[in-house]
């Protein structure tokens, strides 16, 4: 409204205090040609219609995204017989924690949660540090073969882990060829060098900046460090900092929010990974693996035999409860730290 009055004033038409909006507009339009009037009318109509349309679009799409989550919650608190009750759509007739409790038992929830958190946070911490160092190396130094080496980083983003999983398995199983030698000395020593089923299969690649989606993380850090002003580096150099000290004392504090974002994403990726971990772990000790094999575990744990089959429709209940359990820690993290997930990407320099 204030804007309109300004324009009117600029056109030199005196606006009386007692005029209604319509009259003001009429005076307003007298000074404009046909095209301008049409433009303003169209804009006005759009401004009225668009918010309504926008609401419907967003509401519908939000529903599609939230639907599985709502369904999970609805299923997790149902009783078995509600599944065959056609009147139950969303709100269960028999509210019960039985399914949730049984799923927790089958997944050994607290133990798995502890394991997964320890592994994920540990690996992510290691990987964020190594990737940041590598990214800084690519962003701020000139050396021979840099472009070729960075090409390898791009390759790391592009090559799916399915291609290299089997050779990697062999490396861990025989510890780069050391294990057979040790086995010759003594079988007990040989068994120690079989790295399959040890957390080392996750930590070692992370330490070499080659863990899950490491290529992408190196890329993000490189973009970010490239964006920092060169003056920072020069000032540090003049004050007598060596390159490594410059990195630790000048660059890292500047990058703290970007560190947090990459760390959070790394935790999510480790949490969600089941392909790599199912290759290296034979036991189901992470959340994703537990969830993937929930079907077989359910019949083992709940009915003491692998042959008992629950009807697929009723099995959905346990599966959805399992999903809910696996997703809840991530959701809590997301809700609490949402700012860093969404704004971090913008600031991390991935864009531009």
């Amino acid at each position: 409204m204030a804007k309109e009055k300004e324009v009117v004033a600029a056109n030199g038409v005196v606006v009386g205090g007692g005029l209604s909006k319509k009259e003001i507009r009429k005076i307003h339009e007298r000074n404009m040609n046909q095209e301008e009037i049409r433009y303003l009318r169209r804009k006005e109509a759009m401004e009225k219609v668009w918010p309504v349309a926008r609401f419907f679009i967003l509401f519908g799409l939000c529903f599609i995204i939230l639907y599985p989550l709502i369904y999970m919650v609805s299923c997790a608190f149902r009783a078995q017989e509600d599944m065959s009750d056609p009147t139950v759509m969303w709100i269960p007739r028999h509210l019960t924690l039985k399914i949730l409790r049984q799923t927790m038992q089958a997944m050994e929830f607290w133990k798995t949660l502890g394991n997964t958190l320890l592994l994920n946070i540990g690996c992510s911490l290691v990987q964020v540090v190594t990737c940041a160092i590598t990214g800084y190396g690519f962003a701020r130094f000139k050396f021979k073969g840099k472009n070729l080496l960075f090409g390898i980083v791009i390759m790391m983003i592009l090559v799916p882990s399915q291609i290299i999983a089997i050779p990697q398995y062999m490396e861990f199983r025989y510890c780069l060829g050391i294990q057979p030698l040790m086995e010759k000395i003594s079988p007990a020593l040989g068994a120690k060098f079989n790295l399959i089923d040890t957390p080392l299969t996750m930590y070692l690649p992370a330490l070499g900046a080659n863990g899950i989606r490491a290529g992408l993380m190196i890329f993000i850090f490189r973009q970010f460090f490239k964006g920092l002003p060169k003056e920072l580096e020069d000032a540090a150099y003049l004050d007598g900092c060596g390159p490594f000290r410059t990195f630790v004392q000048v660059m890292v504090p500047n990058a703290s929010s970007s560190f947090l974002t990459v760390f959070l994403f790394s935790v999510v990726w480790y949490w969600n990974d089941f392909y790599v971990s199912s290759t290296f772990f034979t036991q189901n000790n992470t959340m994703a693996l537990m969830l993937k094999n929930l079907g077989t575990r359910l019949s083992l744990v709940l009915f003491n035999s692998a042959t008992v089959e629950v009807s697929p429709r009723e099995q959905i209940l346990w599966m959805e409860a399992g999903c809910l359990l696996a997703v809840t820690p991530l959701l809590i993290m997301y809700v609490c730290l949402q700012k860093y997930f969404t704004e971090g990407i913008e600031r991390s320099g991935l864009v531009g």
Partner: protein
Amino acid sequence: MAQKEKRAIKMPYERRKGLYGYGFIALWLIGTAVWFLYPLLNSLMYSFMQVKPETGGMQGTWVGLDNYVYVFTADQNYTKYLASVLLETLWKTPLILIFSLFIAVILNQKFKGRAFARAVFFLPVIIATGPVYSIINGDISKSGASSAGQFSTMFSTDLMGDLFQFIGIYGLSDKMQTMVETVSNNIFGIVWSAGIQILIFLAALQNIPFSAKEAAQMEGATAWEYFWKITLPYVSPMILACLIFTVIDSFTAPDNLVMGRVLDMQKDWKYGEAAAMAWIYFAIVLAAVGIITLIMNRFIYYEVD
């Protein structure tokens, strides 16, 4: 003389700095040699060999291109899966890009509840890469369950057919109708795989300088014109980034048919054939991304700093 002195001081620092650069990437260099390059080379070798796992490592005999020939001629499923996956990527990728740009433009506007809407649209980012997604997806597409069935019929043929009839283009073109139907049936997959893309586009939109917006307003640009003349050129570099990201993402998705076939082969201990399959697929996708990048680069607007 002075010049010589200057060089004598300057060169060592630059060289020393270069050496520090190697120091910074040393850890990665070792890691990559062990956990990336060596396995990659091995897997390429497997694809030319008949491989058997034995104590101490893989034992193989060289068979040349036999595995590749087998994959294309003898394997029943591979070519079929490959064709369907490539076709799906071909039509889904543009849709995901258009959709995420559209949503990003909407989420960039000011309205009540924007924070909530943003939070919801980024939610797939944290869930869609995990096993939870495949369970959700499976449950919904199976549609055996009561309410899951409800959901998939909501967007199904009847609704779209009714809409067409209502608008009056009933029976205009069967092909068109099936196309729209596939899109509306797949809306779940599209919405769920657009999280990161929306995030990237949104960040790009926020980087559009205010002066450009102001100028457009002064000239009386409509929202439509503004989108084509200002928004699109400014986000065009990100379209390429999102495109590559989408292709790679679908490439490694857990429900990808070709990758599923590769894993099945590995479970049957047929590592040579599995490696050949994976490499063919990888080569095709890499070539496609390369060509698209080359073509797109001609249309991208880079702001010169």
